[in-house]
């Protein structure tokens, strides 16, 4: 863990050098990275290869001294043995940081080489990501992934800062975030995390105004590193979501101790997250739902949910799922029910059932939703509203999302919607999402979005 790294060159470089660009092999990772930055991003990029020469009419610099202007960021994709020399050049030239894509370090029996570059970085105050990683994806600015752009699903700029120990999980999670319409402030694959580790990026994201939720995929921490991480996450002032995989091999088990046998690595990890108000996701689906929800609603709720639906069946299904998660769907008071009923249209008033779930029936119109959500928004009987919207009814207009968002902004009470994600409902969905109301593509997804808000407080 490093106190004083300046991450600006790593996340907002004004000039990039890609080291290892091959003059003969277009599919070399360095070439893929060089080409994508050169062709698709606004930032100037230079190719470096000790042999010099030209690549596709562009100059190839033999070393960092030859580059006319100092790059902020070096992307290094050379053989592991050559990495220390490249790092030394970067440090001499005053480069601000590096992404080391190359493998061949601790993961393949060379911890010595990894320790050597880590201590070079530490001594020079030179931050680098990796080695053995995909590096950084900064939407609209640049990325260092050695994967052709056309093969990636690329989320828009947005509020999620994501850090992954696995490059593969990161790329796949970008697909899931995109499908949810969830944007990224920055995504980082940290690979062997020789120097820059989760906690460093946690601190960066905590201070970054573009990031609203900080998410992690973690396989394991080093000695006592977990404690420092949860303490820093609790102090971040933003929701932190963690997806933890695997059970790390964390030392030997004490023979004959109940405690050592019961308090396994995963139990301790999971309980520590809860203790510090960090939201644990159990799978990629939860991770996506939690990030979506918490990027809109960073405050914790107790979890008393008002369910509003056009279909009795969906109301019952949602209630089952919410109860299974330990959330409450409290019966509404007679006074609140009367207030809701008063606001309903003449068609719906006699047939709606308002006990919670509030079933407005298939005859409902925009005005009925506005009346129900307005009353629930003002009431202290629920602290969150789940709207199950099956837009089959002709009384529901494309403007509903925008109109409900105004009601929601008046009360400030979190509102989560479920709308089936098919193309013909896109305009309705965008009416919610562009007005900052999260929309789930399934009933359980919507329930998880509510659950996220309950989990983001210390247990």
């Amino acid at each position, binding site marked *: 863990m490093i106190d004083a790294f300046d991450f600006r060159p790593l996340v907002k470089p004004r000039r990039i050098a890609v080291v290892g660009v091959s003059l003969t092999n277009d599919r070399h990772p360095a070439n893929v990275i060089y080409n994508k930055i050169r062709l698709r991003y606004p930032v100037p990029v230079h190719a470096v290869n000790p042999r010099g020469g030209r690549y596709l009419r562009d100059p190839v610099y033999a070393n960092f001294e030859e580059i006319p202007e100092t790059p902020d960021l070096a992307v290094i994709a050379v053989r592991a043995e050559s990495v220390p020399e490249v790092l030394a050049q970067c440090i001499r030239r005053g480069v601000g940081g590096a992404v080391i894509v190359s493998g061949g370090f601790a993961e393949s029996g060379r911890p010595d080489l990894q320790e050597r570059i880590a201590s070079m970085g530490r001594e020079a105050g030179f931050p680098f990501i990796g080695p053995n990683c995909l590096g950084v994806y900064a939407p609209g600015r640049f990325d260092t992934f050695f994967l052709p752009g056309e093969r990636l699903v690329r989320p828009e700029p947005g509020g999620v800062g994501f850090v992954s120990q696995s490059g593969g999980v990161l790329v796949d999670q970008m697909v899931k975030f995109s499908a949810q319409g969830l944007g990224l402030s920055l995504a980082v694959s940290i690979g062997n995390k020789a120097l820059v580790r989760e906690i460093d990026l946690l601190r960066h994201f905590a201070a970054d105004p573009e990031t609203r939720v900080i998410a992690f995929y973690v396989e394991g921490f080093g000695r006592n590193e*977990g*404690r420092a991480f949860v303490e820093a996450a609790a102090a971040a002032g933003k929701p932190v979501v963690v997806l933890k995989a695997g059970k790390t091999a*964390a030392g030997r088990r*004490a023979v004959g*101790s*109940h405690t050592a*046998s*019961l*308090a396994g690595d995963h139990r301790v990890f999971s309980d*520590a997250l809860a203790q510090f108000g960090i939201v644990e996701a159990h799978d990629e689906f939860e991770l996506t739902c939690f990030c979506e929800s918490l990027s809109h609603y960073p405050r914790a709720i107790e979890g008393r949910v008002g369910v509003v639906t056009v279909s009795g069946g969906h109301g019952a299904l949602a209630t089952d799922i919410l109860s299974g998660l330990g959330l409450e769907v409290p019966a509404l008071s007679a006074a609140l029910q009367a207030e809701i009923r008063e606001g309903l249209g003449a068609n719906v008033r006699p047939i709606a059932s308002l006990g919670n779930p509030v079933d407005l029936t298939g005859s409902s119109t925009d005005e009925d939703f506005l009346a129900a959500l307005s009353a629930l928004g003002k009431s202290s009987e629920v602290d969150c509203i789940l709207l199950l919207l099956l837009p089959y009814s002709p009384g529901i207009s494309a403007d509903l999302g925008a109109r409900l968002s105004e009601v929601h902004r008046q009360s400030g009470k979190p509102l989560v919607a479920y709308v089936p994600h098919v193309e013909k409902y896109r305009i309705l969905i965008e009416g919610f999402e562009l007005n900052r109301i999260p929309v789930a593509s399934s009933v359980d997804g919507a329930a998880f979005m509510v659950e996220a808000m309950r989990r983001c407080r210390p247990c």
Partner: protein
Amino acid sequence: MPAMLDGEREQLWERARADGWIPEPEALRLLEAAGVPVVRHGFARSLEEAQAAARRIGFPVVAKVVSPAILHKSDVGGVETAVADPAGLSAAWTRLSRLEGFTGALIAERLAGLELIFGAKIDAQFGPVILFGLGGTAVEIYRDVVTRLAPLRERDVASMVCCLRGARLLTGFRGCAAVSLPKLTAALLAFSRLVMEIAERIEAIDLNPVFCTAERCVVADARILPAPIP
């Protein structure tokens, strides 16, 4: 009981590292000195000492073998849970004295109440961790436990209680009185302070069972495993 002298304490840890655990009488003393309530007990090296301890504590008593060779006492018949009178104690003494490595017996008050477990371990990723849950011999069957990073704060205790599936056993259920939350909190916080103090020296601790009632929370059995020699 007087607090341990520093020199005595050093000897205790040194012997424990060689044996693999701290003998129960010393483990109970360590806890008591740290303010963790422990069962009224006496360590007896002879039947006469045992009878005197039992008279002092009052029958019925529990008699447990003390032996550096026996970690799991109940597995080898090393715990006599219902010693009713002096004759019973003589018979129990005879049985216990035949067990491997017998150095004496711990004579203790017979307790009732809800059986809980307090535990501690040094986790590789998180350092000292406190475990709490429903205890007794079936602790590894039900696995109804929860952990928190040490040191515990007062509010951690309430949150651990409500995280248990069996929380209602502690908060009152069908005529069973609730256990005293203030006594439970005091015992757990004292335990947590001790764990922080000796974190460098231990690998794991089991206090199981800890008997809790509406009046008190008392440790009845203690197992302290020292950190392996580096």
